[in-house]
């Protein structure tokens, strides 16, 4: 069987037996997903990149302690959410300490190829949403997660996820109508 087709759990077992290439596959499988989640918090491309790397270092170090009580994807998303939140807290403390005004502002990304109108619009819409609504909606629509798993990742009830996603939809709908986009 092609290594790339192995499921997460088998790859983790192989990695724990000393096969580094299995970790590479996990990394490549999750990098963009994790990066998207982190970016939805940091709103800053470089910060998201750094935090994502830190998350993978943490995952690399703590895979031995992964208890398999939840799916690996739930576990890694939870780490991503927690580390993004602590990054923001740390940054906000530093901001208060040094009173740098620009910290936390949405930074213009320097990209060689300009993102498409749809991509920019999607980002604009998502960043209009409150943090929890935004994350629940991204996990559901972009990462294809079920409400149950989102509840585990965000550490809230399934009912709360239902409500977050519904309110996200309504907020987006109002935003689009107000700006005559749809």
């Amino acid at each position: 069987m092609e290594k790339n087709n192995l499921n997460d759990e088998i790859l983790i077992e192989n990695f724990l037996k000393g096969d580094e290439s299995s970790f590479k596959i996990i990394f490549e499988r999750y990098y963009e997903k994790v990066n998207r989640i982190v970016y939805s918090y940091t709103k800053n491309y470089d910060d998201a990149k750094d935090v994502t790397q830190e998350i993978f270092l943490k995952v690399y170090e703590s895979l031995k302690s992964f208890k398999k009580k939840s799916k690996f994807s739930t576990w890694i998303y939870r780490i991503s959410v927690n580390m993004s939140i602590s990054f923001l807290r740390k940054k906000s403390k530093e901001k208060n300490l040094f009173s740098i005004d620009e910290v936390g502002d949405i930074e213009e990304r320097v990209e060689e190829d300009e993102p498409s109108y749809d991509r920019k619009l999607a980002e604009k819409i998502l960043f209009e949403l409150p943090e929890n609504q935004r994350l629940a909606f991204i996990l559901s629509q972009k990462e294809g997660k079920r409400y149950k798993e989102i509840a585990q990742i965000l550490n809230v009830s399934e009912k709360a996820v239902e409500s977050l996603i519904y309110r996200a939809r309504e907020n987006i709908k109002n935003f689009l109508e107000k700006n005559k986009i749809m």
Partner: protein
Amino acid sequence: MKHVEKILLSKYVDKEIEDEKTKNEIKRHLNVCNYCMDIYNSYININSLIKNYDIKSDENPYLAFVQKKVKLSNSMKTNFRFSLSFGITLALIFLISFSLTLFATKRNVDFTKRVSTSVVDMSFDNFFSEDYSSVVSTVNFDK
């Protein structure tokens, strides 16, 4: 006509309604109600819009990860080496000062012992030379 609750429509769009009866009722209602169908369609459109959310990732993030991992492990090794040499230095300082203290104490004890021995010797000398002999002589005289 009673419309479908919006939160239920939102769940329906995400295929999160498990109860078959409820699912069928919503499906039937959507076929006859334009108001609910409009909301349903707007939710579907929002979904497809949000699917465009993405961020451009670097050329080779795994390479960056490996470099970071190596850097971290090197700094940990350096830290370990530093802690080790610091520990050894501390242990040596402790050993040297301990030996010096021990040596000094021993010398002090020897000196005190010598002094006290001579004092005792002197008192014994005195005792035997004067008092004791006098006592002995007294005893002798008495007898």
